[in-house]
């Protein structure tokens, strides 16, 4: 495994379209996670699960 990582036999340069799609996915994933965290927090506060925050 180590040898394989040091000397890759095949490497395919990603195309600009692939890199662009990956960037979009990364941004969407980050936004999705942030929104989900806020969503969980607000829901828990509104339900009184986190009592010290009002």
């Amino acid at each position, binding site marked *: 495994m180590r040898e394989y990582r040091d000397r890759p036999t095949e490497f395919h340069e990603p195309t600009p379209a692939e890199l662009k799609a990956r960037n979009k996915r990364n941004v969407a994933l980050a936004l999705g996670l942030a929104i989900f965290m806020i969503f969980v927090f607000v*829901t*828990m506060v509104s339900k009184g699960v986190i009592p010290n925050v009002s």
Partner: protein
Amino acid sequence: MSSSSHNTDIKAAPSGAAFNPSGLSLAEPSDFFALMKPRVMSLVVFTAWAGLVLAPGVIPLWAAIASIICIAAGAGASGALNMWYDADIDAQMSRTKKRPIPQGKMTPRAALGFGTIISVASVWMLYIASNMVAAALLAFTIFFYLVIYTMWLKRSTPQNIVIGGAAGAFPPMIGWAAVTGDITVNSVLLFMIIFIWTPPHFWALALYKTGDYGKVGIPMMPNVKGPKSTRNQIMGYSVLLAVIAIAPIFTGLAGNLYAAFAVLLNIGFLALAFKVWKSRAGEIADSADEASLYEVKSGDRAARNLFAYSIIYLFATFGVLAAEGLLS
């Protein structure tokens, strides 16, 4: 087509993303959104909202919004899981071949991961936002749609959408349970309206898309029992739907406003179903634009009209029920 042969094709597909040499996928966020079947999701959101509005009692606004979001996400997740499992037949059907997996934008495995994560998150969040009953109903809906309908019934029986239709009928019941935490006669009635509406809705579509379902081996009613039997059953279910749709007036769920609209809406439904019954819909080989949901040959117009009207019917029925619930 057997279900055992189906997954072999999927597993034989490259496990790297989108079959590209670099291993990177071309899938964009919009493709993941498309996996969630946004058109179906809009109907789910609407009927769940109606259930929430009609249920006796009140819940905080945020809990109501959160519940609707969770129900929508759960429905979307089951759509993604459906596309994972049905990737093989989707690629061969004109109506579905432009979905993200058949187009090669993402692998079935990516859809499986996406659908699983959203499923778990939506059920858990619904439990936090509302209660255990609503969350359990959502979990059961996802299970029912994926395992009972997609994996089992869809490829094995022409009754697939009759029984499988239950999955699409649960959202108003979940919305109701999010408020009350229980299942009552009235919430079951909301379920029954969608449940009985589903066969005439889908069979009307199947009548003029017979070839599409037939070539992938999906045993839809027109392929198995023939167009005449399908038209008879559409008529039968339409009569039953009219009876069920009037029932909320007698259980106290709806009043005079709904009664007036329900009579008109069901007269329209029965009239269009009668035209289908009298027509020769489904008996001529497909020749219209395959990709279009509404493009049909002249003989199939009655079926197309019933299919289109049935969508308006469901929105209007739940819209009037909810409006009256809000006004009273």
